[in-house]
């Protein structure tokens, strides 16, 4: 069976886009082929600095023939209608069949469609597919009316070894490509995938990204090992450099000794972000080594000597800059920098970083008192936690925020725990990161995240769909993980600390608004006056805005935070296999935002529902609720209240009544004492009387009173179970 080989050859494609583009290309072409009845054995896409390629194996030489039926008008329908039908179907009347659908006879056109040659279909389809390829950023270029990521130079497309002729972006398809930019000369002619990959290799191009990565990783490790060092693994960097070289060659360079007393994080970040070098370490001490690994794209005739020397020179300049900032930064204390935060806007509606720090500081103190952390140290750490944003190093490398704060704090002679908290209050910075460990760090971390959540919810900047520009989801998840993993007994949204946080955030928003009205550069006024066409009118209008309306709006916005956190909790617990419906069942009781307690309750419930007693009781509950609901609807009356079981009632009715009565008082006590497993055991005791009741007792007795009593009994069963969780939310 014939194969398809395709390559789009362009100027250098940004490394970060290559793999996604190859996947998209494969997805779009596979979809287009399947849509046209062209099945195949396999497809594989490739990407590199200058090319996207796709190999599709085992395609048919032509599309299958298909016959298509089209229902027409009834026999004897007006001539115009029949004519119109024949025209649209492209058939004559005697080519139509007559059929009967039971209601009468009508015409059916049977159109036989011959399958077209696959090559013809490809020539037609491929340009459309290319035009649909979703580049994150694309450009126009001379000679083309469609956009591509960078100017497109050639398209190689063969089917069964022959060129599939078409044109895209002003480029005609053919059977040639080019090799490495500097290590290969002249066009390479290709017929099939096998000679494509081999010829490229001879032309110093490794086609497969996975193979390039393997080569890089292997080479770096080996060269490090030869020096008694090891690689500090960096997946993101590996992906990037694999997209920057068609023929990766690893070289080792040296970091000058004068830089080795600069914090290793600065060295590593500078090497990574500016130069894309791998850092190495000494396996014995774990310390950063004075060597780095660079990945070049060149086999130089001097063995890379000049390349290494050049790179070392660049790094020296880079590190001199970094060292300059590091020395400069330590000339001022963090404390003296706090005031500078007034010049850094955190968010246009939430005020400056200084205002944020004021809020975090107060909140961290309150949380510290609750979780048994040192209040003074927590407040101190919070006070200093954003001051490093004004330093040169963090200005240059924003990802070092916190890390640098810790270094500067230690340099200033701050308490070690305070310094650690400055670094760790950003934790966890992603699913792979650990949550803060010390109590002081925890207090500041929680305050930071809560302030962020309440702030952004307060101004209605909630994440929507895939858009989460302020990383609100990450903050919520970090908060949840910290609370659960550190087993913190704290009410997140309802405690007194939360109430004072709300009022502080609301005040900041109000302050910002007031400032906007007074500021000579007032943006609000300018925006409004752009709309109404007069500045005087704009000022009048803005001043009329009711401040209370802002407060109401704030509270309204923030009220969505509880559900948001519950949703995040579901995501957080999904991996552990915790059922989301059970989280809902407990959460919707409405007064629980102590996450540790909530999760303990959910877990006990989940354990219970796995037992036979649990499943049966749930079934009994559902049956009871259905009956009560149906009868209440019929009677227009709610069966609540204490049932009074008459002495002559059946034994099973008595048993259930007694069981419920007994459980009712005990279960409340157990839940208050957070003995959820024991509470579930009590519930298990209900299963037998419930089953027996449904087996032996008819609820809808003719006697009105007996019926009412039984309905109340079932209603009470529901109420009792709802002390544990809202069972109606439980699925299955």
């Amino acid at each position: 069976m014939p194969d398809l080989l395709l390559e789009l050859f362009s100027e250098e494609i940004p490394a970060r886009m290559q793999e996604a583009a190859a996947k998209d290309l494969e997805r779009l072409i596979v979809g287009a082929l399947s849509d046209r009845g062209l099945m195949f054995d396999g497809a594989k896409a490739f990407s590199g600095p200058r090319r996207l390629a796709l190999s599709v194996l085992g395609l048919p030489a032509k599309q299958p023939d298909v016959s298509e039926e089209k229902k027409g008008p009834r026999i004897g329908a007006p001539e115009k209608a029949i004519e119109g039908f024949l025209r649209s179907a492209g058939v004559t009347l005697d080519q139509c069949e007559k059929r009967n659908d039971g209601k009468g006879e009508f015409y059916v056109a049977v159109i036989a469609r011959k399958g077209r040659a696959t090559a013809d279909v490809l020539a037609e389809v491929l340009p459309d597919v290319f035009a649909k390829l979703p580049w994150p950023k694309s450009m126009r270029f001379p000679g083309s009316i469609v956009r591509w990521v960078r100017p497109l130079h050639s398209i190689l497309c063969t089917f069964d070894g022959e060129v599939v002729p078409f044109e895209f972006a002003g480029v005609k398809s053919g059977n040639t490509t080019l090799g490495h930019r500097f290590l290969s000369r002249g066009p390479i002619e290709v017929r099939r995938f096998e000679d494509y990959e081999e010829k490229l290799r001879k032309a110093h191009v490794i086609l497969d990204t996975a193979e390039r990565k393997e080569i890089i990783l292997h080479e770096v490790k080996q060269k490090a090992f030869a020096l008694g060092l090891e690689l500090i693994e960096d997946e993101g960097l590996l992906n990037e450099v694999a997209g920057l070289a068609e023929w990766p060659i690893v070289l080792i360079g040296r970091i000058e000794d004068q830089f080795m007393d600069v914090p290793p994080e600065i060295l590593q970040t500078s090497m990574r972000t500016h130069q894309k070098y791998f850092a190495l370490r000494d396996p014995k001490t774990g310390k950063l080594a004075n060597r780095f690994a660079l990945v070049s794209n060149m086999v130089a005739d001097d063995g890379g000597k000049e390349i290494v020397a050049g790179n070392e020179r660049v790094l020296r300049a880079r590190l001199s800059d970094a060292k300059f900032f590091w020395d400069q930064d330590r000339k001022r204390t963090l404390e003296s920098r706090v005031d500078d935060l007034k010049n850094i806007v955190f968010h246009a509606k939430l005020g400056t970083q200084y205002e944020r720090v004021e809020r975090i500081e107060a909140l961290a103190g309150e949380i510290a008192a609750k979780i048994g952390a040192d209040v003074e140290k927590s407040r101190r750490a919070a006070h200093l936690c954003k001051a490093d944003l004004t330093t040169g190093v963090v200005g240059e490398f924003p990802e070092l925020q916190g890390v640098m704060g810790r270094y500067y704090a230690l340099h200033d002679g701050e308490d070690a725990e305070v310094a650690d908290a400055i670094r760790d209050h950003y934790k966890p910075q992603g699913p792979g990161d650990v949550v803060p460990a010390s109590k002081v760090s925890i207090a500041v971390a929680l305050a930071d995240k809560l302030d962020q959540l309440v702030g952004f919810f307060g101004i209605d900047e909630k994440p929507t769909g895939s858009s989460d520009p302020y990383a609100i989801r990450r903050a919520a998840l970090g908060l949840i993980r910290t609370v659960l993993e550190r087993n913190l007994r704290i009410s997140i949204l309802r405690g007194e600390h939360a109430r004072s946080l709300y009022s502080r955030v609301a005040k900041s928003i109000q302050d910002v608004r007031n400032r906007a009205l007074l500021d000579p550069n007032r943006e609000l006024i300018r925006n409004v006056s752009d709309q109404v066409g007069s500045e005087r009118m704009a000022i009048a209008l803005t001043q009329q805005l009711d401040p209370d309306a802002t407060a109401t709006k704030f509270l309204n916005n923030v009220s969505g935070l509880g559900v948001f956190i519950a949703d995040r909790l579901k995501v957080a617990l999904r991996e552990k296999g915790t059922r989301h419906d059970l989280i809902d069942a407990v959460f919707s009781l409405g007064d629980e935002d102590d996450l540790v307690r909530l999760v303990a309750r959910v877990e006990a419930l989940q354990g219970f529902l796995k037992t036979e007693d649990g499943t049966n009781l749930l079934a009994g509950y559902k049956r009871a609720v259905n009956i009560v609901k149906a009868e209440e609807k019929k009677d227009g009356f709610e069966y609540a209240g204490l049932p009074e079981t008459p002495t002559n009632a059946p034994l099973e009715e008595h048993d259930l009544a007694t069981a419920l009565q007994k459980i009712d008082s005990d279960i409340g006590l157990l839940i208050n004492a957070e003995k959820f497993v024991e509470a579930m055991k009590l519930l298990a005791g209900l299963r037998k009387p419930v089953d027996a009741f449904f087996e032996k007792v008819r609820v809808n007795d003719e006697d009105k009173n007996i019926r009412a009593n039984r309905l109340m009994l079932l209603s009470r069963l529901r109420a009792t179970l709802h002390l544990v969780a809202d069972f109606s939310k439980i699925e299955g």
Partner: protein
Amino acid sequence: MARTFQDLILTLQNFWAKQGCLILQPYDMEMGAGTFHPATTLRALGPRPWRAAYVQPSRRPKDGRYGENPNRLQHYYQYQVILKPAPADVLDIYLESIRAIGIDPARHDIRFVEDDWESPTLGAWGLGWEVWCDGMEITQFTYFQQVGGIDCDPVSAEITYGLERLAMYVQGVEFVYDLAFNDKFRYGEVFHQSEVEFSTYDFERADTELLKHHFEDAEKECAALLDGRKLALPAYDQCIKASHAFNLLDARGVISVTERASYIGRVRTLAKACCEAWLASPMGDYQPRFG
């Protein structure tokens, strides 16, 4: 091989002259980058073909380091090439220019690393790369997509060489002031004092009230020149003036974050209006000379 700083410039001048470029002279105004030269900003617009190359002194008040930093300067030279429309083999031509300077791609590691260019003050952006030589950025390469908020059609290629950096690389020098300007003079003899004095001016002495007035005067004049019978080129000069006044104010640290955005927006408004006026002028529009 360009042994000295001025050799480097002469080599590039000769190289690009052979590529059919007009060898223009620096624009006689203070500007942050060669892109601001009307030969790039304005000529990148409209259908008329254009090829030009020139040295442009670039002033970045904020980058002043009192002559103490090994490679940061508040005044340095860019070599700017603009090719419109961008030729299909423009990268090959560029690599030829690198060879001409004395960098042999067979001994070095030349890479095109994604770096999209944007100038918020000019309302301009494009896609391209920074060109790396052994890990050092030696050129900025951009395919212009928009200038003054207007689509560039046809698309131009802009090549910007940082001359000092390039010379430092070619000469193997680590401190910019050690560069051989010619056989007799070092770069420091020519420019060190000026770096010290201008850094002092940029950060300490520039009269900010006066600068604010300069900004507003230029803004006013620019708008006036675009009112009635439009004078695109003189108006654009005023836009350049406003932009430099803003850069000085920024270096003096008297502009807050919100003000900053607002100043940039005001320059952009001027730049856009100039670009539109240019397009409506005889040279902006394409008028074939024959037939």
